[in-house]
């Protein structure tokens, strides 16, 4: 993916460890995976692999400190399935980045559209540490 198309997430250097919150609309089921990459877009490490079922967490800490994230990439992928399987389904996937309990200046990042039965999504962003 071209560098200039990757959205930037600005985080504060002295802030707490940032978090990512993934939500899925239209009451659809989702099974997702979040990966953190190095600054060259290699060596992915898994931040979370979970579902959006009731009672399961939807917010996950990213890395160990904010300063370590500068220039690194984060990706989130999801398989979304319609519990009913009815025709004309819609999906919506929103990623919010938070630090110190507040939303980061950029975002949220939303993907949405129609689908039938199941669909799959992929999205990414790059961190930029600001003072």
């Amino acid at each position, binding site marked *: *993916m071209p560098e200039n198309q990757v959205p930037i997430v600005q985080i504060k250097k002295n802030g707490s460890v940032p978090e990512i919150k993934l*939500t*899925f*609309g*239209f*009451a*659809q*089921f989702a*099974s*997702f*995976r979040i*990966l953190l*990459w190095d600054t060259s*877009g*290699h*060596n*992915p490490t*898994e931040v979370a*692999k979970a*579902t*959006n*079922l*009731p*009672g399961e967490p*939807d917010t996950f800490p990213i890395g160990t400190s904010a300063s370590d994230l500068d220039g690194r*990439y984060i*990706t989130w*992928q*999801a*398989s979304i*399935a*319609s*519990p*009913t*399987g009815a*025709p*004309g389904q*819609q999906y*919506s996937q*929103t990623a919010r980045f938070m630090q110190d309990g507040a939303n980061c200046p950029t975002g949220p990042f*939303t993907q*949405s559209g*129609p689908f039938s*039965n*199941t*669909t*799959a*999504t*992929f999205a*990414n962003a790059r961190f930029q540490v600001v003072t």
Partner: protein
Amino acid sequence: MRKQTGSSKNLGLVLAVVGVLTVIACPSISARCRFAEGLQQENLRPIRVQIPASGPAVIEGAATRDAVSYQSGNRFVVIIPQASVASFQNDLNNEFLSVKVEQRGDDVEISFLLRQGGSGRVVTAADKISVVFALPQVALRVSRDDNESQPILAPRADTSTPSSTTNNSVPPASDLSTPASTITTPVLAPRPPVPQATPTLSNLLQGIAGLIPGASKDLEASFSNIDLSVPESPAFTVLGVTPNAIARPGTPREFATSLLNGLDKNGNFQTGLAIDTAPYMLFNGQNVTLQDYNDYYLTRLLSRTQFSLATTKGAASDDTATRLALGLNVTLWDKGDARVYHPKRGPDGDVLTCFKANIQPPDAPSSAMPTPAEIAAINAKAIAANNKVADACRDKVRKANWNATGWVIAYAPSWITKNGQNTSLKWNGGAFWSSFAYGFDGLSSLHKIAQLIVHARYRSNEQVADPARPGRFISQNSSFFGGRFRAGNPAFAFNFEAAYVRNQIAPSRTFTSGRYAFGAEARITDNFYLVVTGGNGPGDAGASNKGFFMSSFKYGFNKKSQLNPQPQ
């Protein structure tokens, strides 16, 4: 009165002379007329009409893409514009009473006379449509003695009497290629079943069963035909239409577009508009998470509330009034809701638990950030794999929850405007439906095998065909109460149902009728079932305000289960 001028008198005289001359000269110019007619025919698209001995009627040809259909009383009509009939094959289907194929100008009109209370719908495919017929439910029927309308529950098994309409002769197929031809064919008695050639045990038993006096093969579950369902799109039902093109907007923009497309330049509704959507999901679906859906009853209620809107024109050529209906379908309670998480039911009894165990996120990219092509490949692989497991999960849970307790209601008001103006819309009656299904939760002996359904519906100001005066309609208010208890497994099954109907025809004629029926079935061996059915049903009593009674008791042998309520 305005006085005629001399010039207008002369003009009228000239026109009259030209008209007379035209009539006199007609034989000499008939060849030219036919030539022009032929040119017109060449522009029409050929269609083929096939009516098999059983199953849907099939109409083939590119023109079927533009077909429209509607139901008027007990007629289901399909109109195919810019078409002519190239071939017509009728194997005397007994799912309707007769069929009429008529060339109306550039259009072909195919009209099916339904059994009383029956309905039809169109299933579209590429360059082909199939007309599917539903069995009779509740309807008016003509009393043969006094031609007086008698509201009854029409029994499904009433198929043996040949019914005729306007024309009892079946013309040769070649006649049908002629423009302006009209063919009406009656349906005769059902054909006897073709004997099976494979000498299996069940076939041998079937043969033996045929020797038992009084026993019938393939005994139909004729008692199990009461419609206890609530329409998903009540607006279409209350207008009696089966729209071929239903707008199902997924976004507010699409909804607005659909609505605007249904209005003319003056803001009046055009006919043929059909919209079906879930408004809460349409406008707020992005914010409805599974967590919210599970936590809040109001979210579930609003998310599943379905809204429908339809407009239509009268069926008769002289009926230019526009009818408009709105509809709401509300699920008040559903213990089988697939979006509600029931981890205790396990993956065999809960869709979400099954999804959790089987649906995987897309594969992680290998070691570097993926290119768009790699992302597309990863996603395509995930979708292909997950589609299969998602289908399997839903199918498995559907079978497990076939008798889930639930309650659905629907309401559909309708209006009519004689001149097509929204400002002159007048009340045209409405309908209400309610169905409660009970799965005997907590009763271990019945919970997995039995279901009780209680149904009620009310329809006001319904326009139905007047049996006493063909072509005329009468207004009636009808109430229906029905129930069904069914229980069983593949080895033994039982069914009992009862219904009560009250029809009021303005101003003061009221008819009531009731029926009950039962059936039991036991599997003797694979593909061989002993069936016993009985009950009383409506007959032609010929008197108002009087219950009908027509008792029956049958036994026979079937090749497949008809009563086991559990989906296999």
